[in-house]
């Protein structure tokens, strides 16, 4: 049996241990797949989106996700993963706002 991590509520920065994805997470996701050629891919995505890679706003991540989804098929799947994680974070954060939970 493989033990998947399910951090308890409030255990890390986001609800149920899920932080909102950011550019660092996007970069790390690509690094898991592409290893030594990651920086070349990341540079191309930043060039395409006109970003420096240091942005922290949600709009910058949206642009990177769009660029990834229109890239080669594996990078596109990676972009889709990030999009799903953003949607999950936003949905849970909204739930928590509605019920007034501090976590």
């Amino acid at each position, binding site marked *: 049996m493989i033990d998947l991590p399910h951090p308890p*509520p409030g255990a890390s920065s986001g609800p*149920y241990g899920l932080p909102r994805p950011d550019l660092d997470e996007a970069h790390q996701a690509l690094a898991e797949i592409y290893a030594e050629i990651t920086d070349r891919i990341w540079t*191309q995505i930043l060039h395409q989106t006109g970003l420096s890679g240091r942005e922290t706003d949600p709009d910058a991540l949206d642009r990177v996700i769009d660029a990834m989804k229109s890239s080669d098929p*594996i*990078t596109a799947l990676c972009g889709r*993963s990030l999009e799903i994680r953003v949607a*999950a974070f936003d949905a*849970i954060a909204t739930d928590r706002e509605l019920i007034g939970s501090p976590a």
Partner: protein
Amino acid sequence: MSTLLHHRLAGRERLEALARYDVDDPHLKQQLDAIAMRTAMHLHMPTALTTLVLDNATLIAGAHGVDGWMRGGPGGPAEWSFCAQTVLTGEPYIVTDASRDPMQCTNPVVELDGLRAYAGAPLITSSGQVLGAHCVIDTAPHVFSEDEIAELQAAATDVVVAFEQHPSRYSTEYRPSFFNLD
């Protein structure tokens, strides 16, 4: 997300296998929805799904009775995904009552969506790659019989056939353009 989990799901060969199918083809979606409906009916479960487990999230590719689950989203993070367990083991993954399962009881899908019973069969391609899972879920605990698991596995085989009937334009001789930048 967990680096270890991401590392295990982000294998190049598995992702290349996933990229060989046109998951956005509406005809494929129709077929997967129909298989899910048949599975749900045969197993007398309210909800059945086909999921693709990507590098760090699960994508719902076909479903029956899924309204209200996952907040209507396209899937969820891999670390919350029961189907990720199915993919990592390559074996059916069965949870009779998730609220009493030490590994799943704090999962938001259990705490927020109320999932209690889960049975998933892996989607294994002819090349041995595990794409995702075909699964049934319920808000009530359920003890799955051997016949039910066999039925689920047979349906998972049908799901793989459906995917193989819908190759993407990248299905042969795929090579990312990034490899040709020199």
